[in-house]
């Protein structure tokens, strides 16, 4: 056995737990050994000529994309470009008009939804829970795809729920109702639910929207942690700078089409920013990470879309 994964729900608890509670955990990645090994299980996700829409409108048109395994993929683009729609399509929330989503090479539409739920977890935007639900109860729902009528609970379920609590540093808040938490804590609780789902794929729709800077970093660090444990992560994110800083792979969309795809440092250029957002800017490299930084933005968009 190698060093236990910090966030891996199958690994035994590590030694002394770091003090938790506050949000001063931005550096938690630095003191955790990162074994660069393959995850215990993995799944592939790709779309083929995927067409999605609501009502009369086609939003995503014949889109083919392959999601890199065990990496963070960020889908970026202006409002209404179809990025959330694409995510909903890949998570089988929205049925395709045409084309397919392939999970491990199989058409997701033809798979039992419970089986999909064991491979792919989704955190939608503005997730709301029933009144009064506690953090621990929410996380227990993550075990739903594994529970049956005859086998409603198992020691493994209990262990995984505890591991998810530990991984997201929510142990002290386990019994608190979700609606009594701060925005960042609540988002961590939702992510903990998807961690308990124990899936190789995790899809997040704007996980940091409506969070202040501190909470944004907290959630993004957690996502990076999960990716280092081998999860394939796909997130829709508004903030291009965060996307560049945390993602390994960028998918830039506009009007339902992919206009650029690849490594953030290579893909994000001044031309791309102008194409995506109608903003002329200067790009600088962030010291340390080399992620592109946008400065001196000027709107050049006169037409409305």
């Amino acid at each position: 056995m190698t060093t236990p994964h910090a966030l891996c729900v199958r690994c035994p608890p590590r030694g002394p737990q770091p003090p938790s509670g506050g949000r001063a955990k931005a550096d938690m990645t630095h003191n955790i050994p990162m074994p660069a090994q393959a995850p215990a299980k993995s799944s592939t996700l790709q779309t083929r000529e995927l067409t999605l829409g609501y009502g009369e409108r086609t939003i995503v048109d014949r889109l083919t994309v392959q999601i890199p395994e065990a990496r963070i993929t960020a889908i970026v683009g202006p409002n209404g470009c179809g990025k959330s729609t694409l995510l909903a399509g890949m998570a089988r929330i929205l049925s395709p008009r045409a084309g397919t989503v392939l999970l491990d090479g199989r058409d997701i539409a033809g798979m039992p939804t419970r089986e999909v739920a064991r491979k792919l977890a989704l955190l939608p935007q503005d997730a709301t829970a029933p009144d009064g639900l506690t953090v621990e109860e929410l996380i227990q729902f993550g075990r739903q795809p594994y529970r049956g009528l005859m086998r409603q609970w198992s020691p493994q379920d209990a262990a995984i729920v505890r591991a998810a609590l530990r991984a997201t540093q929510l142990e002290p808040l386990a019994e608190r109702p979700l609606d009594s938490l701060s925005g960042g804590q609540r988002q961590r609780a939702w992510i903990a639910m998807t961690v308990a789902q124990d899936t190789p794929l995790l899809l997040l729709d704007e996980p940091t929207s409506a969070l202040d800077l501190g909470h944004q970093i907290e959630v993004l660090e957690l996502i990076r942690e999960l990716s280092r444990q081998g999860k394939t992560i796909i997130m829709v994110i508004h903030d291009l700078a965060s996307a560049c800083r945390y993602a390994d792979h960028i998918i830039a969309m506009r009007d339902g089409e992919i206009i650029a795809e690849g490594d953030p440092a290579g893909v994000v250029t001044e031309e791309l920013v102008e194409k995506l957002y109608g903003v002329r800017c200067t790009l600088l490299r962030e010291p340390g990470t080399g992620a592109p930084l946008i400065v001196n933005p000027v709107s050049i968009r006169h037409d409305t879309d």
Partner: protein
Amino acid sequence: MSATAPASANDAPRGYWCLRPAGLTLLVHRRGAWAGLLLTAMILAIATGSLSSGTIPLAETVAALAGIGDPVTLFMLHELRVPRLVAGLLSGAALGVGGCLLQTLARNRLATPGIIGIDDGATAFAVASIVAIPTSLAPPMLALMGAATAAALAFGLGGGGSRGYRFIVVGIAIGALFGAITNFMLARTDIDAANLAYPWTVGSLNARSATTVATLAACLAVCLPIAKMLGRDLQLLRFSDAIAIGLGTRLRRTRIAILIVTVFVTATAVAVAGPVGLVSLAAPEIARHLTGHRGVPVINSALAGAMLMIAADWVGRTAFAPVEIPVGVITAVVGGPYLLWILLREPRPGGG
């Protein structure tokens, strides 16, 4: 109470018992189980009181139930009171379950069969069979057709139930429509037929036909286990659609299954007791109040509904004796304020 409490390897979630009969692993919500026991005890107490009220002493009642006693007492119990009690228990349970299911489906506590118009649909069809279009079909059959029509209209026009608010508004309109049709038919018909149809419009447990009650019993025997089995998916319906699907729920199938079960239990209950709509609104509230807001209390809603129904019937039969007040009137008079009290006193979600 702290999260650092040592936990054994196979501990059940907080607040649950983990039972392992014959290789199964079942979770039992502790507070829910206690609430069920409490409700059962209250049902027994009210049933005993109701059976022995007035002229028959308690000891004689018990003896008569065992078949010992004078013919008058035996007749009164076996022919009048026991069937009536059974009708009340079953119809109350059915209305309670129907309310609980529909509230969960629409994610709204207002969405009960009485409000969505399923009661009204059942009543309208049943009244039509008595006063307007004589048929050879039994009232439960017609009530079922009416309930199914109303439910299908509300579900179809109300956006498939995914938007609770729209479902309710459409349901209220459909209920009003069927209510108006019922009143129109009653106004146009002669007094004898109207009298015959009267119990259908207010709700009464007096002299219900045995076949109707048997139909209800059969329906409950099938629907209660189904409702309980749907429980796992029902819990997920309390989240948004995307989360429920993400956790592996077949959303559309679950919704339609719930709607069908609701239509069956509501229609057969209305065929027995008439539109006692408040039971389906109040019973799940009582169940949730006792169990503390967690989960979807299918069985406890049934118990609470049964209790409410027989309590209301007992009061209606004895309070102004010899004048009998229909059970629907009593549930409205007693249940209304109680429901208001529950809704208004609730300070914070999760505080119960």
